[in-house]
């Protein structure tokens, strides 16, 4: 398995505010990589650098060992899908129309969708359980349904890698777990490489094989979940003590948030955790 996507000393700033600084990460083929970090640590910006939407000030981004900006957008879209945080359409489109947009990169300029394109779109809708929504308008769907439609569209691109930006931010716990189960299965069965930016350290630690912890635009730590999610690293990056133990089912690290309120701790904590 080779390296699919890679950044080399990437730096980026909005105006004079440095958002990414000397970030070098590698994503191997078939990886399931989670990117975590506090608000404003540069997670979303890193994702945009990885998908080539923004060009870094310094450093380079390689996709399949070629500079990502040397790819025409259309060619890149045949290998890389992106599911952003939120989607709004200016005008009413049906779910089928939206999923078929994923075939744009595979179509000729004036061509219409071929039976094969229709087949791929249908298959994508089936695997995301959105086939029954095909003729509904996107704007009438619930948050969970919308996300599945956007995933179906990304799948219709038949990509090698899919990047997710905060995929569970607006979902309830049922949809959160369904989402992670779904992309885990996708990763296992079809070998699609997954990169997911997430706020949810616990979910990410259970599902991801590799993790990157960002702090103030820099890579704080990178490696297996048990290497990245430690009491110490969370304290240094988030500035808060957490209780860390292992999930008895998966053996992966699991954090519990701790109250900072002294009175609360005296009152509610059955036995105090080891003091710092």
């Amino acid at each position, binding site marked *: 398995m080779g390296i699919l996507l890679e950044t080399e000393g990437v730096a980026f700033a909005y105006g004079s505010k440095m958002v990414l600084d000397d970030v070098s990460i590698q994503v191997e083929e078939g990886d399931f990589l989670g990117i975590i970090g506090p608000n404003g640590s540069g997670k979303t910006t890193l994702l945009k650098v990885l998908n080539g939407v923004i060009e870094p000030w310094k450093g380079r981004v390689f996709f399949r060992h070629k500079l990502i900006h040397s790819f025409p957008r259309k060619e890149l*879209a045949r290998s890389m899908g992106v599911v952003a945080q939120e989607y709004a359409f*200016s005008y009413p489109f049906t779910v089928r129309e939206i999923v078929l947009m994923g075939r744009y990169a595979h179509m000729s300029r004036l061509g219409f969708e071929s039976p094969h394109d229709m087949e791929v779109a249908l298959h994508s809708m089936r695997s995301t359980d959105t086939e029954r929504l095909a003729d509904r308008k996107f704007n009438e769907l619930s948050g969970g349904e919308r996300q599945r439609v956007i995933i179906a569209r990304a799948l219709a691109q038949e990509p090698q890698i899919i990047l997710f930006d905060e995929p569970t931010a607006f979902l309830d716990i049922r949809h959160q777990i369904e989402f992670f189960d779904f992309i885990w299965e996708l990763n296992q069965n079809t070998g699609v490489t997954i990169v997911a930016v997430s706020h949810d350290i616990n979910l990410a630690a259970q599902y991801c094989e590799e993790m990157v912890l960002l702090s103030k635009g820099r890579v704080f730590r990178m490696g297996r979940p048990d290497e990245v999610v430690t009491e110490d690293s969370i304290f240094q990056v988030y500035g808060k003590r957490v209780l860390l133990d292992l999930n008895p089912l998966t053996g992966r690290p699991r954090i519990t948030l701790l109250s900072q309120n002294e009175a609360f701790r005296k009152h509610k904590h059955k036995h105090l955790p080891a003091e710092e």
Partner: protein
Amino acid sequence: MIAARPRNILVVSGALLLLSVLVTFIALASGAVTIRFQDLWQILLGSPELSVKRTIVLDIRLPRVLLAGCVGIGLAQCGVVFQTLLRNPLAEPFILGISSGSALGALTAIVLGFQFIGAVSLCAFVAALVTILLILGIAHGRGPVNTTSLLLSGVILNAFFYSIILFFISTTSEEKLHSLLFWLYGDLGRSRYYHVAAVAPIVVLGGVFLFSYAKHLNLLAAGEEAAHHLGLAVERTKIILFVTVSLITGFVVSVSGVIGFVGLIVPHLIRMVLGSDHRILLPAAGLFGASFLIAADAGARVLIAPTELPLGVITAFLGAPFFILILNRKGTGWGSS
């Protein structure tokens, strides 16, 4: 909602083309002098009799109806593209100030009394071009084309030009005032075949060109970032489309004056009935826009004949209630909910 398959596009376009032919016949027959359909048929077949009516139909009404059709196609299609590019349902072909810019050109020609053939149109067109360059210059000055700064520069330019227009209006003589006002509210009364010859190729070729960007426009309607992810070279596409629709609008406005509302409501009407896929929306809006404007222009000639109304009066007067009716009848719900 109709799926954008080649057969559906042909059927819808065919039906709407038939409608516009029908409307054309009715518009040729109606006016201060009503002409019976048999006579109209004879005249169109080239019968040398009925010389007076012949002149009315062939020299006065036909160029006017054809021009109305071209202007309708152009305004409706440009409206579709502006609404998608600016991601704003209130957008219309004149939103970037092209109307007031070219109005200023036309008014200059009228006030200074230029007499050569097509003087008003020519000045209007040159002024429209200058306006387009100004807007693109202002909005493109700082990096990639930003929709909000584009919209704002359009609004500001509009306000500036209108102040000059109002200055003209308040200082000009009575008889020139009439043609000034007609131009500002749309007027096809001066239509000649050379106007048609100038605008028809632009509108038709422009329409074909825009259709070749229909799938790109679908992606842009999904959001610029999503369009990027789906494989579109967003910046280049936006600039090409902005320049194209601005040019078409400039051509159209220079022969017709400022006809409001068509470019706003026709795209929405078609979207509500046929859906948002640009492969069906663009041709359907163009052809329906043609019928709508031909009918409205006939109305402008007939309603208080023999006096004529400015065309913009009719388009807004008929269009607004009709639009509200449709808006309330169908659960449209666009935008993010």
